């Protein structure tokens, strides 16, 4: 029964929420609303589970005295500090929690993503070789859109922006729409497979 009960739960939940879209009955919607509220809470516990797992993994590493142990200790200290400060003193603007978020979290996360600018330029230089018609089409479109969508494109040719916009609204759109339709068909079939129990990977091994 250890796998059958979860499969029944998955089926009932999935079928219920599909039916909720079609059934206008208020009682039905009220039950759906209640279960939605429960889902928000259960997902929150899943997030905390993730953090607990991070803590466990790093504690194991510290016990094994790996070469990055000092860094793992710093990680756990920061985790505990931020959690305690936030829970005890609140998270509103002007609190210690908020100060650390704005002055440490924000700059670091922003810079981590900004590093990608360097890597995309490097990757474009090394890997972008026009060896076939398809690669040429990709490269030419990329260059036209890249130059056309910035002000210098309009300075070079006043209709460059309109031309780039045409590429986005017509040929590009056709390809993206096909991908959207294909992905929708895939998502619907995967969803149905999960609901009827043909897809069970989310339950893990026995």
């Amino acid at each position, binding site marked *: 029964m250890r796998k059958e009960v979860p499969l029944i739960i998955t089926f009932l939940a999935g079928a219920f929420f599909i039916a909720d879209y079609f059934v206008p009955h208020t009682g039905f919607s009220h039950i759906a*609303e209640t279960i939605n509220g429960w889902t*928000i809470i259960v997902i929150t516990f899943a997030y905390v589970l993730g953090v607990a797992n991070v803590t466990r993994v790093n504690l194991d590493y510290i016990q094994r005295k790996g070469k990055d142990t000092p860094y793992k200790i710093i990680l756990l200290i920061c985790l505990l500090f931020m959690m305690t400060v936030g829970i005890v003193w609140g998270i509103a603007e002007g609190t210690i929690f908020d100060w650390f978020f704005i002055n440490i979290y924000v700059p670091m996360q922003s810079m981590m993503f900004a590093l990608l600018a360097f890597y995309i330029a490097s990757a474009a230089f090394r890997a*972008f070789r026009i060896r076939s018609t398809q690669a040429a089409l990709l490269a030419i479109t990329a260059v036209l859109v890249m130059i056309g969508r910035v002000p210098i494109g309009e300075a070079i040719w006043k209709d460059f922006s309109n031309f780039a916009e045409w590429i986005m609204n017509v040929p590009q759109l056709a390809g*993206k729409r096909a991908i959207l339709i294909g992905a929708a068909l895939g998502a619907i079939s995967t969803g149905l497979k999960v609901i009827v129990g043909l897809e069970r990977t989310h339950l893990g091994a026995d």
Partner: protein
Amino acid sequence: MKKLLEFINNLDRRWIFLFIGLAVSLPLFFPLGIDFTVSHPVQGFYDTIEKVPNGSKILMSCDYDPGSLPELYPMTVAALEQMFRKDLKVIVTCLWPAGPPVVERALNHMAFEYKKEKGIDFVNLGFKEGREVVMVSMGASIPNTFPTDYNGTPVTQIQIMQGVTNFKDLAMIVNISAGYPGTKEWVQQVQARYNIDLVSGCTAVSAPEFYPYYQTGQLKGLLGGMKGAAEYEKLVGVMGLGTRGMDAQSVSHLTVFFFILIGNLAYFVLRALKGKEVK
């Protein structure tokens, strides 16, 4: 010549990093001031908000985190500027965990400029985990999904939330999104079910896949990346980071184009030269 081409072909990537760093930095110190026009999707974003009757209630879902700040924060600020100018009542939600403090700052800053009062003219309902489930839950009841605002005040005590049960009580939705959950989920779960006007400001990475939604009318307007933010700032009449960054954007794009060009030139000329040597 061959040595130069080989040097280019085997160029250490740190030289590329240096050039990109200079391409972005120099225009910030020496602005070029190149003008630009506004595209249709951006005009649609502006016009849709402009058409909303003054004093109406709008939901603004800021689904992003600091990783996308340069693209999306200018859009948030410009949108708040337009909405406060029209005396629209703004209800803000966040579906990304790191969003609320950033949006709180934007709200407080704009509220101070326009002398708007928290709880009466705007409210930040904060974050809820659950992604699409939160959207579907809001369709049934926004107060039950967000029982308090970001600072813990019960929504029953917040004036702007009086009379707001679900999406039917709102004039439109403005979504500023960095990925998942974001615009796609708002279109699928909310716009498709409730047929409410939806406009989106998104990162440039996501923008191409949302053009089909704009073409069908599921999105009434679309801002794509920092350029979209700059065009929107032009319409609203503000000089924000979006506009200030355009010159750096232009020069950096030309730099990337230059690297792609010389990379290919070096590769193909070297290949031809090596082919001649073999013969």
